């Protein structure tokens, strides 16, 4: 029986040069009866871990390799025979990447010679050095090159590739290659330089080539492959193609049999942590915990000390003391510099993290599960995220780089993939669609999934009738195929990899766009699968905001607030939450939150924890929220699926809300060990393969049966777990966030000026734009002062409790401009326009903006006159034209004009809200304001109007669209059914000021208007 293994194979991780996902290639290999497959993407191992995992699940042996570009542009394929070979790959890839300019990795041949151990080298495609020379008729040079490779790899580990894609030059080239191999004493191997799993993939491959070279299909003849022969071919096809070279075919099998790499890097994962003399990492950790527990618990309860002992035992056996010390040290560093820091994520489940001050959440009080964080049985690595204030995170990163050295630290990468809009734009461009049309299509897409482009377009009137034409069908079909294809790499927001041995031995590296930054080619899932550890050092603007607010409070009121000491039961905070008066606060601010808070009516921190876990951006399952809410409101009885589920779900009225509960149920109902329960959680939330899911499901069912449940009930419970596990929130994470949410509410109530000032100084952040925050501030009694040329700083400031808007809000001013103003002003205030212009030398347009927003009102000259005066000033770089100097009579700016200028040039309304301009006419039409609306009853027909501040079409909302309007007094929430949305699509999508007619829906303290008709107010 003929056997063949493909050794030269590109996945879509050969960015824009590979038209199949790793799984698609592996599935095809499985169909073809192949039990091994290589992955050889360009200059990297980006897809290697995913490939390795997927291959192992399918019973296929993964062969890990890469195709590198050598100096002068020649290609070369390298395959790892063993772990030593894997290390060589990491070195060579990193060298190539770090040496060339970003995006053009190139390896020095001499470096190649230094890292050949454990590798098998294949000469590459037609762009390989040997082939290139042969094609150019330079046999001598081909021979020299060949000798070099045979020399450095040895005749057993260097093969000349023979490829047959039915190209003109194939026959002659292959003959010459065989001859050359004989002369060199080397062997040949047959490969197919695969770029897609099935023949049909050639079309997407062509499109990717166009995207890569930014051109269209019509104009790219020499950039595309001439035919569709680059798919994964069967052993039969290959043996028919290479009937004259059976040895080359057999060598593919032989090489495959020599390659065995197991990507388990667990033992490499931790750097040594320097501890005081006489201590080991564990003993030091132990001592720190003992000190810590005494600080946190007065007295130290038996429960606490028992838990601590248990956790420390697990940590010791798992060998993770250094990990905790690593994180403890980073947080300690931050705190010493007064940088706000708080740990969250599954880490917050541990008492150790709490007593080491890494987290602020008491796991005993909140009944958290340690095994969610760290389970001994599983190979799972702990995951600690630490949030720092956004403005200080960089400082912390630098500390880590310096402490552990550049050799041992790198950022984790993130793969940006094609989604609906980018797919439409890039694929459409390649197909030759006009760019304007593509822009229109892209902007009208409500979905993120490129697979849905076709379905969405057919619902849009202006496009629906086009969809039968070939180009449109091709567009939607190719978009479907390209969904989630890797497009390019970026850096993961906070993930940092710190390792024991030098990184370059175990992880391929490349440059990041930021100078000096090095990033690993593996993303966070890969890191986890490899058994390596990353710490997420993230930035949270809210922490900066809180930090700034506290500084202002100290400065202005002389109060040094300690947020860890404030009472957690302030009734004013809870009543504010019940009213959903949460603009500007953390996590409880969004439209969805505002809809739920009046129903939830939180009264304690635990309620906030549940609120945050239930309502989050991302998938919102209708039936996930409702059962809990219904039971809380007493509308549904509290029942349990089975008595065994009670202990886990009692605190949430029988409904699964937290991921920890998924684990507890698995343990209580099906006898899962903590390790197995964690695997269940992980498998579901990371969308593991069908095989693995089935295996876990069977384990659960049989465990449940063993506990006396019947099969149907066991299946029901399991489906519930499946449903919740993929987006159930981690309780400890929610708890950490709840504390911050509480703090932000506390500040908003008790120190509103400082709160809003800090909020405006840390934009962009949160759910709402600055204009909404400013309106909210005014409604809360904060007085705003306009931008003032002599008083405003860059940032917003407080003047006797009034909020002075900062220069940074003036459009077009820019940082340099702001600096110039402040620097000049230090020499004395600006006395007039001429003085200002002369001293700051700002561009005319910028000065115009300052005038128009009223920043120069202190000189008591009307704005139009100032503009006129500005027009008369000569700017040296402009033309010498003298405008008429006689006095002109200019009408003052109208109220409407001033309001318009504020919105236009500041993005906020310090004075009146824009709706106030329309109010007179709206009143005459019977249109209600947000205040009068609140007196309506359920079922009333109303007309309302306002400025659109939120427009949401959540993917799980089944076509419903949610819009929030703002007027002078507050907010109005609208719900638009899919049918109505289709009728008024254009208006609803683009109107800035909207007027709608609809019916009031009022329930549980929440008021919405269900829209029936809509029109643009302007």
């Amino acid at each position, binding site marked *: 029986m003929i056997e063949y293994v493909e050794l030269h194979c590109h996945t879509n991780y050969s960015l824009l040069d590979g038209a199949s996902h790793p799984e698609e290639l592996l599935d095809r290999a499985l169909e073809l009866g192949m039990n091994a497959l290589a992955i050889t993407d360009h200059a990297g191992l980006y897809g290697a871990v995913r490939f390795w995992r997927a291959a192992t699940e399918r019973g296929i042996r993964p062969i890990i390799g890469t195709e590198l570009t050598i100096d002068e542009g020649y290609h070369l394929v390298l395959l790892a025979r063993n772990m030593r070979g894997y290390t060589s790959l990491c070195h060579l890839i990193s060298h190539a990447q770090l040496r060339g300019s970003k995006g053009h990795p190139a390896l020095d041949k001499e470096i190649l010679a230094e890292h050949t151990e454990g590798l098998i080298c294949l000469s590459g495609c037609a762009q390989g050095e040997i082939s290139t020379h042969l094609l150019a008729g330079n046999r001598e040079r081909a021979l020299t090159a060949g000798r070099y490779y045979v020399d450095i790899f040895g005749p057993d580990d260097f093969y000349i590739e023979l490829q047959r*894609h*039915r*190209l*003109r030059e*194939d*026959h002659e080239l292959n003959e010459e290659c065989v001859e050359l191999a004989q002369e060199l004493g080397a062997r040949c191997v047959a490969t197919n330089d695969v770029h897609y799993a099935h023949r049909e993939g*050639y*079309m997407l491959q*062509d499109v990717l080539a166009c995207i890569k070279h930014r051109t269209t*299909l019509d104009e790219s*003849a020499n950039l*595309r492959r*001439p*035919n*569709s*022969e680059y798919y994964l071919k069967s052993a039969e096809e290959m043996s028919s193609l290479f009937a004259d070279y059976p040895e080359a075919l057999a060598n593919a099998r032989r090489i495959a049999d020599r390659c065995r790499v197991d990507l388990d890097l667990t033992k490499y994962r931790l750097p040594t942590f320097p501890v005081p003399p006489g201590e080991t990492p564990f003993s030091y950790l132990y001592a720190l915990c003992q000190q810590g527990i005494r600080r946190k618990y007065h007295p130290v309860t038996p429960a606490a000390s028992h838990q601590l002992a248990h956790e420390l035992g697990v940590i010791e056996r798992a060998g993770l003391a250094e990990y905790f010390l690593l994180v403890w040290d980073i947080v300690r560093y931050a705190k010493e510099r007064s940088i706000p820091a708080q740990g969250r994520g599954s880490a917050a489940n541990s008492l150790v993290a709490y007593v080491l001050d890494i987290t602020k959440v008491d796991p005993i009080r909140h009944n958290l599960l340690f095994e969610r964080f760290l389970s001994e049985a599983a190979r799972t690595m702990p995951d600690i995220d630490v949030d720092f204030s956004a403005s200080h995170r960089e400082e912390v990163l630098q500390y880590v780089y310096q402490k552990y050295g550049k050799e041992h630290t790198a950022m984790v990468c993130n793969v940006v993939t094609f989604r609906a809009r980018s797919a439409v734009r890039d694929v459409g461009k390649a*197909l*030759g669609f006009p760019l304007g049309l593509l822009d229109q299509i892209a902007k009208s897409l409500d979905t993120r999934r490129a697979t849905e482009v076709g379905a969405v377009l057919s619902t849009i009137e202006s496009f629906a009738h086009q969809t039968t034409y*070939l*180009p449109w069908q*091709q567009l939607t079909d190719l978009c479907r195929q390209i969904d989630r294809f890797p497009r390019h790499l970026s850096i993961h927001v906070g993930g940092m990899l710190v390792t024991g041995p030098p990184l370059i031995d175990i992880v391929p590296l490349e440059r990041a766009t930021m100078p000096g930054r090095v990033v690993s080619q593996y993303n966070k899932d890969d890191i986890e699968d490899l058994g390596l550890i990353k710490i997420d050092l993230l930035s949270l603007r809210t922490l900066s905001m809180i930090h700034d607010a506290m500084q202002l409070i100290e400065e202005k009121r002389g109060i040094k607030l300690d947020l860890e000491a404030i009472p957690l039961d302030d009734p004013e905070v809870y009543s504010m939450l019940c009213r959903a008066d949460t603009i500007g606060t953390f996590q409880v601010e969004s439209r969805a939150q505002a809809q739920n808070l009046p129903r939830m009516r939180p009264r304690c921190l635990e309620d906030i924890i549940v609120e945050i876990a239930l309502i989050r951006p991302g998938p919102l399952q209708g039936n996930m929220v409702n059962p809990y809410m219904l039971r809380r409101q007493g509308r549904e009885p509290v029942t349990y699926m089975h008595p065994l589920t009670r202990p886990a779900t009692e605190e949430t009225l029988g409904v699964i809300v937290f991921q920890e509960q998924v684990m507890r149920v698995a343990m209580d109902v099906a006898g899962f060990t903590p390790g197995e329960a964690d695997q269940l959680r992980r498998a579901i939330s990371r969308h593991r393969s069908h095989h693995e899911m089935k295996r876990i499901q069977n384990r659960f069912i049989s465990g449940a049966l063993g506990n006396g449940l019947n099969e149907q009930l066991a299946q029901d419970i399991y489906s519930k777990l499946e449903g919740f596990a993929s987006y159930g929130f981690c309780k400890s994470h929610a708890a950490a966030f709840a504390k911050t949410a509480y703090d932000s509410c506390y500040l908003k109530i008790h120190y509103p000026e400082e709160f809003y000032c800090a909020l405006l100084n840390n934009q962009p952040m949160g759910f709402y734009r600055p204009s909404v925050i400013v309106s909210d501030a005014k409604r809360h009694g904060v007085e705003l002062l306009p931008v003032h040329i002599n008083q405003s700083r860059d940032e917003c400031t407080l003047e006797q409790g009034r909020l002075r808007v900062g220069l940074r809000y003036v459009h077009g001013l820019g940082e340099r401009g702001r600096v110039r103003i402040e620097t000049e002003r230090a020499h004395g205030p600006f006395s007039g326009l001429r003085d200002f212009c002369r001293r700051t030398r700002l561009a005319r347009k910028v000065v115009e903006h300052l005038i128009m927003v009223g920043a120069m009102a202190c000189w008591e000259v009307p704005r139009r006159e100032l503009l006129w005066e500005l027009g008369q000033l000569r700017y040296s770089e402009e033309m010498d034209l003298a405008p008429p100097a006689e006095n002109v009579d200019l009408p003052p700016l109208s109220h409407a004009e001033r309001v318009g200028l504020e919105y236009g040039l500041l993005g906020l309304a310090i004075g009146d809200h824009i709706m106030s301009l329309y109010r007179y006419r709206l009143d005459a039409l019977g249109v209600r304001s947000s205040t009068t609306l609140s007196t309506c009853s359920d079922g009333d027909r109303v007309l309302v109007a306002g400025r659109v501040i939120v427009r949401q079409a959540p993917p799980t909302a089944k076509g419903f669209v949610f819009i929030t309007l703002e007027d002078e007094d507050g907010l109005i929430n609208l719900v638009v059914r899919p049918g109505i949305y289709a009728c008024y699509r254009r208006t609803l999508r683009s109107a800035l000021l909207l007027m709608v007619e609809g019916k009031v829906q009022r329930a549980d303290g929440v008021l919405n208007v269900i829209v029936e008709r809509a029109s643009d107010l302007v």
Partner: protein
Amino acid sequence: MTKLWRSGPPLAVLADDNGAPQSFEWHGDVHHTNTICNSWRVHSDWWKSSIIWRDYYKIETTDGVLCIIYHDLVTDAWHLAQIYD
């Protein structure tokens, strides 16, 4: 002089089991293949209404004619692409 067609005149061709042309009829005459000097495949223009998917053969006939014919894999028809004079 060389005559060259992009979508050349149709031919009646007899091919062997591997699809290689053994003989073809052109202007009433039957020509037999002496050597197939080269063969290659093209698959392109899929985004247009006329896909090109062809196997080309450069043939020297027994009567010394050098030409290129192709097998259109979409229509299964054979055509003449080029004749060398």
